[in-house]
């Protein structure tokens, strides 16, 4: 146990030296280098996670792991060639656990910090304002409509935005979810829907069919029209 602790301290000292040296070509302070390292292992989290976020520092980490393992195997002493190879791999395993411990510590700090920021918003803001901050315009728009039209309806969502594109698809899904129980996505599109919801549609009122009546306006390009026979 004590020898493992000694090796742990040895690797940590080596890492501290390495961070100092690496900060030179990165043209950062030591603190800046440490922050870059920390951000590599806990990048900015969005509502969909961390996917696809790469960092140029990962090869540096693996290089540090290999070098640390070599350092440990040198300190532990030499033996036969076969013994040295085995010792190197054992050192590599120990080094991996050291790195794991350091990275986990970084992650715990970052996770706590992130949650702390969310919690502060949650406690300060009202439920509606908090959701507005988290979910944005789709929530605001859908929330207004749901309050004015409580109950279950079928509806079509009409907009100038291309909801099939990646940029606006998320907005469409969000609006449709927030609008429920007003059902936009999951009804027979051949039926006459109860409501026509115009969202960011230029001159929306010109597109309202004769058998619908405008019953809600939200700015210049968004409105809700209700089928006449429902009134």
């Amino acid at each position: 146990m004590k020898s493992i602790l000694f090796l742990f301290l040895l690797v940590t000292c080596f890492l501290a030296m390495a961070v100092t040296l690496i900060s030179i070509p990165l043209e950062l302070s030591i603190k800046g280098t440490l922050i870059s390292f920390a951000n590599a292992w806990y990048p900015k989290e969005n509502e969909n996670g961390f996917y696809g976020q790469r960092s140029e520092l990962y090869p540096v980490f693996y290089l540090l792991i290999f070098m640390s393992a070599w350092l440990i195997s040198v300190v532990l002493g030499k033996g036969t060639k076969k013994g040295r190879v085995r010792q190197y791999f054992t050192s590599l395993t120990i080094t991996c656990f050291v790195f794991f411990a350091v990275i986990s510590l970084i992650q715990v700090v970052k996770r706590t910090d992130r949650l702390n920021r969310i919690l502060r918003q949650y406690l300060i803001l009202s439920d509606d304002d908090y959701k507005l901050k988290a979910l944005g315009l789709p929530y605001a728009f859908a929330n207004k409509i749901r309050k004015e039209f409580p109950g279950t309806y079928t509806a079509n969502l009409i907009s100038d935005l291309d909801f099939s594109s990646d940029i606006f698809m998320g907005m469409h899904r969000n609006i449709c979810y927030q609008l429920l129980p007003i059902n936009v996505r999951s009804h027979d599109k051949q039926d006459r829907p109860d409501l026509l919801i115009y969202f960011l549609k230029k001159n929306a009122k010109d597109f309202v069919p004769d058998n619908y009546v405008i019953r809600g306006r939200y700015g210049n390009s968004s409105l809700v029209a209700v089928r006449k026979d429902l009134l």
Partner: protein
Amino acid sequence: MIISLSLFIAFFLPWIIGYELLSLILRRQKFNPVLMVSLSYGLGFGFLAYLMFVLSFFKLALTLCNVQAGLISSLAILLAIRVIDKKKEKNEAVIFEKKESLFGNASLLLKIIIALGILYVLYNVALILLRALIVPVCSWDSLATCVYNAKLIFYEKTIPPLKFLPHPSYPLGIPLMITWLNLNLGYFDEYYLNLISVFLFITFLCVFYYFLGYFTNKRWALLGVVLLISSNLIYFHAGIFYRDLPIMYYCCCALFLLVLWAEQANKGVALLSSTLIGISSFIKMEGSGYSIIFILLSAILINKTKQGWPGIRKNIFLFVFPALILNSVFYVVKFMQKVQATEHYDLSFNLLIHRIPHILEVFFFGVFFSANWNIFWFLFLVSILVRFRNKGKNVSIRVLILNTSLWIFILFVWALFSEKGGSALISPYTFSRVLIHYFPLIIALIILLLYPSAEAKEVK
């Protein structure tokens, strides 16, 4: 107060049904109490989802009254069976139990490290729980399919025709579980539904701990749990409601039980593992593919037991029949409603060779150059290099490696031969999530390979 009571009932009813089902499957045996409770949770909620699906299929409204009636009737039947069985039972033997202490006669330094490990796990679980309760539904898949379907079913009080649902071929296990919770609350809540996922994760940690503890010791098992919870993506998914973490629960638990069966053949364990892998097909489409891997592995293990034909036939029935039935339920309904069986498995058998470099790139960067997995994939490779020669003959290690290899192979083949599915898979967003499904195997293999056992157990 009322919310607490509603939540209690929402969790208690399926949980107790799961416990009774588990006791029925295991008959005169049982696991350690914590393991019983952990497995009961998944089993109970899986049963709940199927019950609600069947109720809706027979045109019964999915109101709180109807679903509760279904659950209580099922519970009554299970309790009646237990009472009848009790008359014949003598003692319930605890299986796969290892009596040892976590702290034992460890040195002071080791005790501190163990305590830190426990604290680390508890702290992260607390973070996950808090996060689940204060972050509303805002992730893509939750808004677009998973929780969307649940909200729709909640308001419609029935499952609409599948063709009207987003991604009609996607199973409805998770949306139905969420609907149940909200039926108990009486309104659709954006926060409490995450508790289902959180408890699923916590119970999975317990199962993982006991599985590793059986093959190593409690200290190494704790290390395994620490490694698992320090994966960023697992931590993130534990607090949101996607399908990936639930399918991880069902598939990995099924596989762990299969490995336990390989150690010591047991009818109840075989039936339970098959049931869990069958439920996974109602959680996510990949569950059907993983069921095939599971059946293949079980066939290999059954063959290794060198039993006579009656024994082989019995084991095949136990491993295949429940998985097949549970897989079929949703596919039959899809067929009846003329909905495509799958959306992403358009195998064309035109080898998309030009795709290979991109697949390898996505895999390499997604596994090694990503913040999702700490350095576990690298540690896994190192563990294989260091210890596979000594430990490669161990039954549990072989089963896990075989499963992992088949899983990665199937993903690779799917990406290679399927235009639509492959494009989805090799997106970094999807690929990372698919890796969650069997990621605990990587951690389990690291622990099993590095654990300093006295000698490797030979293959039977």
